[in-house]
């Protein structure tokens, strides 16, 4: 059929590229996770679960949990910062909203490394914050603000907050404004209108933002590497190490698989949460 051929020609090249350069490599990772590491860093093709066993060793499990903790903290803080900001933008005059959003998203479009580096400048011993604290006499000597979990969380929050604001704003702006008015008309004070009507109806946006931050944070490499100074090990760093230093590709692959597994679970949970909550759209 002519139509079939045309579709094939259109879809074919792109699809082939994705298959060859994404699906196959990912399958490879999947396979590697079941093999053994060779003595000199190659792959020994014997089937084994030992990589996954190792991943749940206390040592590595601790790293997985710490990654989850840091990612969770970053997610929570990002949500707390983003929700009021998104709400403020949604209540601004309609013509100004795109501008406010643009200004929020602009930093998001600059280089990730640079955004992270900026916090090194802000947080290190000779950095801006310490300088300000010292100059104003608030502390006697420079605080060790950098190279700890807190700085990693700060970096993650800084990098992802714009997207969370966008996600939550989308949800809020799609609400029928008369619903909030109806709640007020029926006697609810503002905070009750927020808690019982607006918050539940904006859950999809919150879920989208939260999953985004968490997934990108837990697999993050750059932020713990630069802002953690080697003292904060997360899953991303671990995978990096296995591939470029320890040369234990099977183990690295297994870790990657676990990471993807966590990600899929979260996406699934998000889809369920979105389906459950009703659509409050106009």
């Amino acid at each position, binding site marked *: 059929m002519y139509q079939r051929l045309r579709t094939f020609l259109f879809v074919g090249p792109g699809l082939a590229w994705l298959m060859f350069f994404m699906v196959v490599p990912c399958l490879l990772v999947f396979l590697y996770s079941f093999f053994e590491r060779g003595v000199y860093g190659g792959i020994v093709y014997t089937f084994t679960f030992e990589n996954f066993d190792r991943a749940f060793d206390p040592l590595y499990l601790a790293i997985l949990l710490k990654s989850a903790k840091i990612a969770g903290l970053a997610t929570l803080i990002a949500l707390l910062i983003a929700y009021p900001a998104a709400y403020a933008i949604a209540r601004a005059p309609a013509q100004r909203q795109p501008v406010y959003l643009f200004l929020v998203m602009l930093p998001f479009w600059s280089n990730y490394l640079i955004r992270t580096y900026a916090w090194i400048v802000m947080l290190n011993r000779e950095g801006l914050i310490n300088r300000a604290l010292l100059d104003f006499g608030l502390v006697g000597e420079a605080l060790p603000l950098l190279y700890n979990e807190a700085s990693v969380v700060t970096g993650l929050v800084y990098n992802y907050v714009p997207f969370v604001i966008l996600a939550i704003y989308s949800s809020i702006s799609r609400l*029928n404004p*008369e*619903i909030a*008015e*109806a*709640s*007020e*008309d*029926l*006697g*609810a*004070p503002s905070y*009750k209108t927020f808690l*019982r*009507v607006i918050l*539940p*109806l904006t859950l999809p946006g919150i879920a989208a933002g939260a999953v985004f931050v968490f997934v990108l944070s837990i697999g993050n490499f750059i932020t713990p590497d630069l802002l953690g100074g080697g003292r904060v090990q997360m899953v991303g760093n671990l995978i990096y190490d296995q591939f470029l230093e320890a040369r234990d590709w099977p183990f690295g692959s297994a870790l990657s698989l676990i990471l993807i597994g966590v990600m899929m679970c979260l996406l699934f949970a998000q889809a369920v949460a979105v389906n459950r*909550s*009703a*659509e*409050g759209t*106009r």
Partner: protein
Amino acid sequence: MSTDGANMLTEAGEEAATVIRLENITKRFGAITAVNDISLDLKENEFFALLGPSGCGKTTLLRMIAGFESLNEGRILLDGKDIAPLRPNRRPINLMFQSFALFPHMSVRANVSYGLEMEGVRGSELKSRVDRILETTQLTDYAKPDQLSGGQRQRVALARALVKEPRVLLLDEPLAALDKKLREHMQLELKRLQHEVGITFVVVTHDQEEALVMADRIALMRDGEVKQCASPAELYEHPNSRFVADFIGVMNFLDGEVSVEGVSVPGLGVLTGRSKGDTRTGDRACLAVRPERLTVAPATAERLTHDNVLDGTLTDIAYHGQDIGLHIAVGDSGQVLVARLSAAAEGAADFRVGDKVQIGWQAQNALILPDDTTT
């Protein structure tokens, strides 16, 4: 400028009490005055309509009563107390929104209970009041609003507001979202409901037919002002201006100049009608007469004996099932009068396009209205 309409007589024949008094309400949005010095009395247990073309300020006025728009000037008195400084959630007034604004994440029962919960009503009292209102509005407890039809959603919105037993129920274009057949049914339903609960209903609508069917009194608005406030019959039979006469129902207009006996219309002579006495000789004015007040007979029949008789030609016949609209060209300047007669009337079926006819009306059935195209 604004007239407080006919006093509402209750069944007992006494003057009904005023539940809401709007005193010199003005609302400006920047350079635009949306509501201009309006004063109205809304009575107990009446069905009141705010009617007008879009942009006339009726919705703004309604929202000011509900509390969602602030006033620039004036007072809103509920049982004598000024409620303008009160937030909407503190007013014993409830608003039914055009989109119904049901809470999509709550069940029907939860939606209806919401307002009572905010008042602190709990337990068995809550349950019984909700049960009662669901019965009154003929709703059974469905799951979520998205499973309901348009008519059912409207009833939930009504139940939700009425269960709080407000002093006044405001409705913003309540029937706009429904299809035609349902709309006609709901017009009578709302009327019945209002009688049953005995609360004052204030409805905003742009549909004059709807207002005529449902309301006890109508305030017809234009450009932020009330042009006439009266019962439907009064508005229909005694409009006080050309705008009102044109907006309500269908009206024939013949433009001309006021003369001693009536209105002098170029090409047709002097035509007579009732005057309110608000015109002087020489003013531009029009003669207004309703289609059903015109009598049409073939030119060949006996001459009509009405106060006014014109000769014309039938240009169009519109068949409406139960009645017939006859479009008749009179005079040389192509003016067309529309007459309406019952399809069952004698001779109604004999008219043909092109026939020569005579049209007649009695002076008492026509109005002389000043030209108000600028006001």
